[in-house]
């Protein structure tokens, strides 16, 4: 089953390119931040891994492409005929998307760490896990809404919406409340600097979002294929 998903991923135009985009965006933005930020004022991990904020777009696109892409071409019918069990099909996709993102993130984060001013082990491992969880969150969203553009909008809205709003309100109490429920803001705490949340609790917030999205996706996936195709 995973082999089938792998073949689809490998042969679809675009999807392998998204892994490259993930690496390029992450490393490029990180390198730019490294070049721009004056030494030693800012947490080194945050600077080296600044590219994660941009690279996650590719992780989202990858996951969305794997699911919503099938709905748009009608391929989902074939997939579901071959694997009638919806949960197993989603699990196979999750494994594949997670695995591919893991591979891409490993390359991207390692390169960024080498280029940048330094990375703590927590930030290194955490940022890779972060990208994988983001891809799973997007996979769940895509399974739930089944349309490429809408899924990307929803997933990126969930990710980018909170930090934008947090920066624009100025009450620290509200900022912290929102940071606690924001997958991106809390998740990025693995890179240090947010003492009130802490690295692993922050990743857990993102994990809850990912699990929640996958659960919603599981309940909706393949529900009424006929209406979609």
């Amino acid at each position, binding site marked *: 089953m995973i082999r089938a998903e792998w073949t689809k991923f490998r042969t679809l135009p675009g999807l392998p390119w998204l892994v490259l985009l993930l690496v390029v965006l992450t490393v490029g933005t990180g390198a730019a931040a490294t070049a721009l930020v004056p030494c030693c004022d800012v947490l080194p991990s945050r600077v080296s891994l600044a590219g994660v904020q941009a690279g996650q777009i590719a992780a989202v696109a990858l996951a969305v492409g794997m699911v919503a892409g099938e709905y748009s071409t009608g391929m989902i019918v074939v997939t579901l005929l071959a694997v009638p069990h919806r949960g197993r099909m989603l699990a196979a996709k999750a494994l594949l998307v997670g695995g591919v993102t893991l591979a891409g993130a490993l390359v991207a984060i390692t390169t960024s760490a080498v280029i940048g001013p330094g990375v703590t082990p927590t930030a290194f491992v955490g940022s890779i896990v972060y990208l994988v969880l983001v891809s799973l969150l997007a996979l769940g969203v895509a399974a739930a809404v089944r349309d490429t*553009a809408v899924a990307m909008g929803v997933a990126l809205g969930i990710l980018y919406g909170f930090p934008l709003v947090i920066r624009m309100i100025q009450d620290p109490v509200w900022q912290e409340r929102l940071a606690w429920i924001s997958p991106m803001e809390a998740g990025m705490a693995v890179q240090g600097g947010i003492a009130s949340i802490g690295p692993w609790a922050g990743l857990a917030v993102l994990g809850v979002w990912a699990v929640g999205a996958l659960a919603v996706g599981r309940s909706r996936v393949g529900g009424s294929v006929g209406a979609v195709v």
Partner: protein
Amino acid sequence: MIPLLRSEWTKFRTVRGWVAGSIVAVLLTVGVGLLGAAGTVRSCQGPQGDVCPEIPIGPGGQAVHDRFSFYHRALPGDGSITVKVADVSGVITYPPPDHDKIVPGVVPWAKVGVMVKQDLRQGSAYAAVMVTGAHGTRVQDDFVNDLAAGGDPWLRLTRSGDTLKGESSPDGTSWRVIAERRLKGPALIGLFAASPCDVTLSQGALGGTIGACRLTNVTGKFEDVSVEGASGTWTHDDVGGEIGAPTLSVGSARVWGSTIQLTGSGDISPAGMEGGAVVERTLTGASIGLIAVIVVGVLFVTAEYRRGLIKATLAANPGRTGVLLAKAAVVATVTFAGGLVAAALAVPVGIGLMRDRNNSIAPITALTEVRVIVGTAALLAVTAVLALALGAIFRRSAAAVIAAIMLVLLPQLLATASVIPSSAAQWLLRVTPAAGFAIQQSIPAYPQVEDYYIPALGYYPLPPLGGFAVMCGYAAVALAGAIVVLRRRDA
């Protein structure tokens, strides 16, 4: 063109998802904006409990800082004051790098000089000729107007009738008129000294910029002070002075013969973003609503490709430019209308919410408020056109949505919520379509006020219409590119 428009409008209106997407954009814009407004809470601990001080309003309607040391006499009618600024010195508390000493020094915008002011009320009209710490001799009036005038030490203000004349001179004999202003009625004439706090910016550990502002004061030594036409005795007042203020910020005057030494702190300037909560805070939702707008804009084209409808569309209207322009017109109009409703709703309701939370609202002119509201709607509409064009270029939803979000939203995010230093953030907001957000900025940056003019605090590097023009440029280029590829390619 009309039938094209009608057919595109019919398509838009009958596809449930597109209408729903447009409604979601409105709801997100209003909802998130009001959330931001509700999260703007101000509390002021003072002797009277949680009562915030009133922010003075200048003659031009702006919120202003008006706190300085004023040594003055009454000026019932015509008159003049002439002085020579012999020396400017001052004190800066705890400057970088170690922030551990109080040192002598004068901040760049410390000012000492002569002033005619309507009365002692904060925010009343004035005109002044002054010597500044590092910006030479200047004429300023009514808080927002500022004129550079070389570096002469002799200053003079003359009133005849309703006209005030500001002059400077290198030697006290040959005078040069710098500016003329109008100021009617009985007024006060005298010497003033003000020294704004020392602004330093540092990088926060999470990136972004942390500003600090530390108390300073300035002492001006005026020689050969001569006043004509004034009545009453010399009096010293700290305009806007507070009981229990730090000793260094309390002004004083010492007199021997025609020499006067005046010490003061504070500033006479527009208050900028410190003048209260800004209107655009109620419109933060627009950047989230933007995502829904992008999705609708992209789908309006890509869905046709996915379902093959584009063949029917192009068979019916072989003029491909017209089809794309009609689509752009429809999606822009719908988004603009939705954005206008959203902004016109979010601003008054949001202002009410912020007022309930003890905020004073930074006053702006009605024209500015209209610009912010209509500008937000236009921002959404232009983004929709950009997304539509990208959809036509890529023909695939995923690529178009990625491109649009990377162009419009990512720069805004990196500029305000990342480690990138503010100089780089300003460049991002100059050269990307995100520059268009400048149209939401209601309070301008004033060159004569030292402040943190950085994107993270809501100051965009380009003027409102300039930034919006950058965004329109991107949309126009993308639309032109889309027309070119649509004409070249098979459907």
